[in-house]
């Protein structure tokens, strides 16, 4: 339970901090400090149990079926790391209290810092590997936010993005690795996994698992070749650098390698991968560090190099190396955090971190200078300081691993040592010499409590360096025991081991380092802006930036290549893919060519369809330049379709198709006025003509192929015997149960009335959409002018308004016919409606017929005249129709039957005898209403556009004449 508190309080603190007003300063720091103190208290409380070798566990079930639970598990290693995390957090909070500027919105800073601490504690306390990854990514995230804290600076943004990209990618690899590891081990639970080392090492997946987990660890710990993000992360405020980039976050990778050391290590692959990366990093980074000019840059590379050292130790795979690794982790955290803070103080006080400017700070801030010098000495590995001890252990191990025949590791260690002495000297040099006069600010000692954390850490360095067994001994024991268990080797934490080879190596590094620095110093002074020799070409950051840029542009290129934003290619693809899918499905089966039955060829029918086909092809051919012809030709094809329906026993379809044909023609004609005139283009360039030809050939081929496919599958269907399906039921039950002899109509309004309800909804929706669209329709400028027919003086009707035309003009006579026709059409519509249930007809046909009658009046006398005399309210027709259909269904529900259950009312009327009124009749009435409403709404909305143009045209009478199409 305490474990849960330990994990939760930072997050609670984070939320609390985030809710503070942004001007708040001290209270934030106190809040953070309180969190840190509580954590420390909990850790102290748990020490007795941990030191007994107990493993504390606390489990909350999260996704037990998937083996993912929140398991908090504290052993010695976790305790040690927790101590590190919480302890340094406290110091950093204290330091930050004075470091952050009054303008900085500190609540955000502390919130992020607390979140980070929580995430970090989560990593070290995870008893489940997936949970570890979860917190791992949270550390990446919170570090991203912390690095980008000063987000108005582009270096902060870039540094944050880079750090996050690299570490989050590593995290994803880690997740994959952990999942595979869990699969091999049979569980994600750490205890189970730790026990499955032998299984894993023998498993075929060992290498991928190792690689993926190593990728996670190496990216996080900024190991070569992923080291480049860390120097850029220095854009973060210094407390962040001190906390994340020296003591904690970068140690998460190290922690992971330690945690999984029992499972993963002990193989040549481990040594080569981890050890190799470590050695490469320590050499490279320590070398580059010498040539930095930025204090924090130097410290960053130094950090990388020390992390490389620890990684190299872990890569060695021996238990003693493990102990050394843990020891150096602690040491590095203390001296590096203090150095970062010192650098921050210098920056804070002098206004710069450029070592080329900083001189003689010893005179201006003597205490700070002393502290920094001691910490640097620890970093350089000077005896009686903690760095010396762990480095010596490192040297000893390199000798041990390399054995007598192979000294390359020892050699690398010595070289690294020389470099680190050199850069430590370079760091120290800022305190010596004559004070610089050209600094942005005149530095002096920082506030008392700002220096306090540095003092604490330096005291720790000294304490460990002088009395290791007393100070750090128990802690180290605790950590090493947790990892190594039975394998815990004997080691001796003493300042003096006598004169041995490691001591000689230490001596060489110290003198070598001083010499190297002396040699190089002149060069620094000569070439202030020199880049690190040899290695400046290996620029991870450049590589990263160009990779990101390349990714973006490459992806965008590829996306353009593999995708399109134009319609035609999409349709080509759609049709081709469908064709391919159909053909693939069809040919994957054995051929079936057993003709079942066929109707004898009928010459008239063939002739009819010859016409239909000719019309269709001609419509396709004419549609570009001769719209009217194309429309007429498509109408011809439609007529043949109607006749086919009629001929093949589908009178209902024929009637409906006939009406739809008419309405569609009127509709498209209404739209034609707003389309631009199209003249054949003159002489395109030969190249574009060729591509156009190619494209047309491709489309033609595709069209022919899809036509062939449709023809083939149609023929196949017709040759196969019909499956005994549901249709017999309808034919048999239409009269007894549906109460109508027209089976199609009974299907539409009863058996499958729900489909029809949906279908009229579609109609209603489209009508509403069309109405909405047309209300805000703005025609193109050139089609606003009146059509040439209406402005040409040759026609006496040219400037007559529709009303004049029909009541005295050329439409006088046609008007008489159409006005006589209207009531007749209405009666016919009613007729088709009433008989629909028993004979061809029904709501659709009737509705369309009725609408056609009304539209004829519009056509004759114009919108204004008709609407001034008749209020149609198509919206109401539409809504009431839909409601009527719904009400029919709801009536059944009220009667206790399912929705849309049909009933027949049997009315005994005096004169007429028995009348059977099926409820489907009301439903069909709804259909009728919707069809009328929708059709009228669409057509009149379109028609209104013309009258609008007319009003505009009459407003300015001298509209330019337009060429007749």
């Amino acid at each position: 339970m305490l474990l849960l508190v330990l994990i939760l309080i930072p997050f609670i603190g984070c939320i609390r901090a985030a809710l503070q007003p942004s001007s708040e300063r001290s209270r934030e720091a106190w809040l953070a400090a309180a969190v840190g103190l509580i954590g420390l208290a909990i850790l102290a409380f748990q020490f007795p149990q941990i030191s007994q070798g107990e493993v504390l566990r606390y489990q909350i079930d999260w996704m037990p079926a998937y083996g993912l639970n929140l398991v908090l598990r504290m052993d010695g290693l976790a305790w040690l790391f927790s101590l590190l995390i919480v302890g340094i957090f406290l110091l950093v909070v204290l330091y930050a209290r004075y470091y952050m500027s009054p303008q900085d919105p500190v609540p955000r800073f502390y919130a992020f810092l607390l979140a980070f601490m929580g995430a970090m504690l989560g990593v070290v306390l995870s008893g489940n590997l997936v949970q570890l990854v979860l917190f791992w990514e949270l550390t990446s995230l919170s570090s991203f936010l912390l690095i980008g804290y000063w987000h108005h600076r582009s270096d902060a943004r870039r540094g944050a993005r880079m750090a996050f990209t690299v570490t989050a990618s590593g995290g994803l690899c880690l997740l994959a690795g952990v999942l595979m590891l869990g699969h091999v081990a049979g569980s994600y639970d750490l205890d189970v996994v730790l026990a499955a080392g032998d299984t894993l090492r023998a498993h075929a997946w060992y290498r991928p698992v190792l690689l993926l987990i190593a990728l996670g660890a190496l990216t996080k710990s900024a190991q070569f070749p992923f080291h480049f993000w860390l120097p850029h992360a220095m854009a973060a405020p210094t407390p962040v650098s001190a906390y994340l980039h020296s003591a904690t976050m970068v140690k998460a990778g190290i922690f992971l390698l330690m945690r999984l050391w029992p499972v993963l290590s002990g193989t040549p692959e481990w040594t080569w991968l981890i050890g190799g990366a470590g050695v490469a990093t320590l050499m490279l980074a320590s070398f580059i560090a010498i040539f930095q000019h930025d204090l924090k840059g130097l410290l960053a590379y130094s950090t990388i190099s020390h992390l490389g050292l620890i990684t190299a130790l872990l890569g060695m795979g021996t238990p003693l190396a493990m102990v050394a690794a843990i020891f150096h982790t602690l040491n590095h955290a203390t001296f590096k955090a203090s150095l970062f803070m010192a650098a921050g103080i210098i920056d804070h006080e002098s206004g710069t971190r450029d070592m080329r400017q900083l001189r003689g700070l010893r005179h201006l801030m003597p205490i700070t200078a002393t502290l920094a010098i001691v910490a640097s000495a620890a970093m350089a590995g000077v005896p009686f300081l903690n760095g010396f001890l762990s480095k010596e252990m490192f040297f000893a191990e390199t000798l041990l691993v390399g054995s007598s025949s192979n000294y390359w590791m020892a050699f690398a260690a010595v070289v690294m040592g020389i470099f680190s002495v050199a850069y430590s000297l370079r760091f120290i040099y800022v305190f010596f010499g004559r004070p610089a006069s050209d600094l942005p600010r005149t530095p002096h000692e920082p506030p008392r409590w700002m220096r306090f954390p540095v003092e604490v850490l330096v005291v720790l360095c000294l304490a460990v360096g002088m009395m290791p067994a007393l100070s750090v001994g128990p802690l180290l024991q605790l950590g090493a025991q947790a990892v190594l268990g039975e394998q815990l080797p004997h080691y001796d934490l003493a300042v003096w081991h006598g004169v041995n080879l490691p001591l000689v190596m230490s001596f060489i590094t110290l003198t070598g380092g001083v010499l190297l620095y002396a040699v190089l110093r002149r060069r620094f002074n000569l070439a202030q802006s020199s880049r690190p020799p040899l290695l400046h070409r290996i620029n991870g950051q450049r590589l990263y930036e160009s990779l990101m840029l390349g990714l973006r542009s490459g992806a965008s290129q590829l996306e353009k290549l593999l995708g399109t934003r134009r319609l035609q290619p999409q349709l080509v693809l759609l049709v081709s893919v469908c064709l391919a899918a159909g053909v693939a499905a069809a040919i994957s089966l054995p051929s079936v060519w057993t003709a079942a039955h066929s109707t004898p060829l009928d010459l008239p029918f063939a002739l009819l369809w010859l016409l239909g086909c000719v019309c269709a092809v001609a419509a396709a051919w004419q549609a570009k330049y001769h719209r009217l012809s194309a429309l007429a030709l498509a109408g011809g094809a439609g007529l043949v379709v109607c006749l086919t329906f009629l001929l093949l026993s589908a009178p209902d379809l024929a009637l409906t198709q006939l009406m739809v044909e008419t309405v569609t023609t009127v509709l498209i004609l209404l739209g034609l006025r707003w389309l631009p005139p199209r003249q054949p283009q003159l002489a395109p360039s030969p190249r574009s003509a060729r591509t156009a030809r190619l494209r047309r050939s491709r489309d033609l081929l595709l069209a022919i192929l899809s036509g062939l496919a449709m023809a083939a599958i149609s023929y196949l269907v017709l040759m196969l015997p019909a499956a005994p399906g549901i249709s017999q039921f309808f034919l048999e039950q239409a009269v007894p149960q549906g109460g109508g002899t027209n089976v199609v109509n009974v299907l539409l309004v009863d058996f499958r009335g729900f489909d029809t309800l949906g279908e009229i909804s579609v109609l209603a929706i489209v009508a509403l959409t069309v109405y909405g669209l047309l209300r805000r329709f703005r025609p193109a400028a050139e089609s606003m002018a009146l059509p040439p027919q209406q402005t040409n003086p040759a026609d006496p009707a040219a400037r007559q308004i529709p009303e004049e035309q029909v009541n005295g003009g050329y439409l006088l006579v046609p008007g008489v016919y159409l006005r006589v026709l209207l009531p007749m059409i209405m009666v016919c519509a009613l007729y088709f409606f009433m008989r629909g249930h028993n004979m061809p007809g029904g709501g659709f046909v009737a509705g369309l017929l009725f609408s056609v009658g009304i539209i004829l009046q519009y056509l004759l006398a114009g919108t204004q005249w008709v609407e001034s005399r008749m209020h149609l309210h198509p919206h109401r027709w539409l809504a009431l129709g839909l409601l009527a259909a719904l009400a029919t269904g709801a009536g059944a529900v009220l009667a206790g039957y399912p929705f849309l259950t049909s009933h027949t009312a049997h009315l005994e009327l005096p004169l007429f005898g028995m009348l059977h009124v099926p409820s489907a009749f009301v439903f069909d009435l709804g259909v009728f209403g919707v069809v009328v409403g929708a059709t009228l709404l669409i057509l009149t909305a379109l028609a209104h556009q013309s009258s609008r143009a007319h009003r505009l045209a009459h407003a300015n009478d001298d509209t330019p004449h337009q060429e007749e199409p």
Partner: protein
Amino acid sequence: MEAVIALSIGVLFASGVWLILRPRTFQVIIGLLLISYAVNLFIFIMGRLSVNQPPLALQAGTDTNLFADPVTQALVLTAIVIGFATTALYLVLLLTSRGLSGTDHVDGREPSA
């Protein structure tokens, strides 16, 4: 008869496909019209062909095997109406597009040369 109707469906469909691949909106709308003819016929013939056997069960107890499949007819009816609605919608959409962009290209802008 079967071959004739199958071929006809093929021709209608091919003409429609050719048209919907064209760049002008009017071509596309005529193409959609032709495709809907083809598809309606296609659905229709899934009930196989029968001449002069409309599904009108005028007397109860008639041999139902004589009738054409009413289900496909009901489906086609729905498809016809929906096809009409969508044609209307596309028409108005293409007019709107033309009004806003000044072109009748399907992409709402003339292709750059």
